[in-house]
């Protein structure tokens, strides 16, 4: 049976990385979960794009950062921070779709 990301992660958060990018961090509970995700390639650009309903080209990078057992996704903001139509200037509440991840 598939498990939800919450069994593996202790932090899932979003924030701006400059006004043009949104960056999503998943901090795993331990090295084992981190390694499992990295080995199985659980998080792909395609999967993130599907979760957010965006084109794959808008997902810039997926980086595994060993020192904090973390995975970072950086994607294009639909609009630059604060431009017309903005809903979240800091980009701090854009993480929820990641809570649907299973592995």
């Amino acid at each position, binding site marked *: 049976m598939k498990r939800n990301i919450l069994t593996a992660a202790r932090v899932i958060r979003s924030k*701006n990385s400059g*006004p043009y*990018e949104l960056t999503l*961090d998943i901090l795993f509970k331990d090295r084992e979960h981190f390694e499992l995700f990295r080995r199985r390639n659980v998080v792909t650009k395609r999967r993130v794009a599907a979760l*957010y309903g965006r084109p794959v080209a808008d997902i810039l990078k997926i980086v595994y950062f060993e*020192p904090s*057992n973390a995975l*970072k996704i950086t994607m294009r903001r639909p609009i630059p921070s604060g431009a017309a*139509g903005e809903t979240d200037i800091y980009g701090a509440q854009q993480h929820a779709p990641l809570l649907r991840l299973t592995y």
Partner: protein
Amino acid sequence: MAAKTSKKKEFRVLSTTAILGYGFPESSFRAGLAKKPDLIGADAGSTDPGPYYLGAGKSFTDRSAVKRDLRFMLTAGVRRGIPVVIGTAGGSGARPHVDWCEAIIREIAAEEKLSFKMGVIYADVPKARVRKHLRKGEIVPLTYVPPLTEAVLDESVNIVCQMGVEPIQKALAAGCQVVLAGRSYDPAVFASLPIMLGFDPGLAIHMGKILECAAIAATPGSGADCAFGTLTGDSFVLEALNPARRFTKLSTAAHTLYEKTDPYHLPGPGGELDLTGCSFTELPGGRVEVRGSRHVETERYWVKLEGVRRVGYRTIAVAGTRDPIMIREIDGILAGVEAQVHDLLKAERVEGRIFFHVYGKNGVMGALEPEKRVHTHELGIVIEAVGPTQAAADSVCSLTRSTLLHYGYPGRISTAGNLALPFSPSDAKMGEVFEFSVYHLMPLARPDGFPLRVVTFRGGKEPK
């Protein structure tokens, strides 16, 4: 000021708060002073609060809060002979922001009768200079940023560039006890002096990168508390100054991720911080030691430009609905209202744009919202009107609010009014609206070539 040949074995830094004006407990500050810092610093800015503050020349932190933080830093620094460095003054670091912060420092100097030399560094970039580089094809957009055009440049205001360590070092070398810098690369506040004294730039900048957020990188994290860093020849050590917090390997490493695109490669003025060989080790007493951070210089010295342009004025109205039929029909209703209002405005020759923020549906994520079904018994609706003048924005908001209030939608049975309005007056003028227009790299021939003005205070007064 210590000379470049200093044989100091370590360099100690007190970072007071994540953003000047966020505050810090006096007990943490005193504990930091007791550790005999060689530098007291605070970064004062960010682009995170959005484009308005840069455009309007205003601070996003409160004046009295900034004055409170500065009073502690200046009195302790000046009386003990510890350099005080403030970066990105006034939140956005353009001339009006720097001037605003300088006025606060002048007040404190007079009230406390302080004697010191202050270096004020401006980070504004004249449009003519950007244009010159633009015509030579030397203005490079960052990822997802459209190429800069001369038309966009013409419309932009308050263009600043993130200075590196060099202008601050120049002020310190000139004997300035206090340095007030315009837009700065956040770590430069903390790294300028140690690099000048011969410490490793990679370690100094990485330490600055963490300390610029003060105790946010501790656990539990806080932007409103001090943190302490000790730089040595081959590592740096971070510690909290509040017994309620400590630095852990995970809290420190997790912070390295924060707000960055790629935690292994952090670009800055003139180079890149390479953390691929970096290690984090926990020491007793809630301290963390970091090794292996490297600074790699780029062939040309690039700086990041930031600029915004005004796109109009804004008026908003807040409302709610509790009608299940209206909630079911909400998308069609809002589209219908918008069309009707635009027809009316066209006849009156009033320009403006309408945005609905529908809380309870997609108010938080907008275009990124994957959940298409609405399961709620009430919705919050914020009407946002943007027009070329405040009067136009007021008209668009007023008309949209009244049209939505009485809009006859399919299946409607509550004919007295569609909205619950919490406020009278219902509409709020929000003033100017800006958007980011410049977020590009520009080459710099002289990294220290920023305008520096030195002010000397004796007993709080500036001698003529």
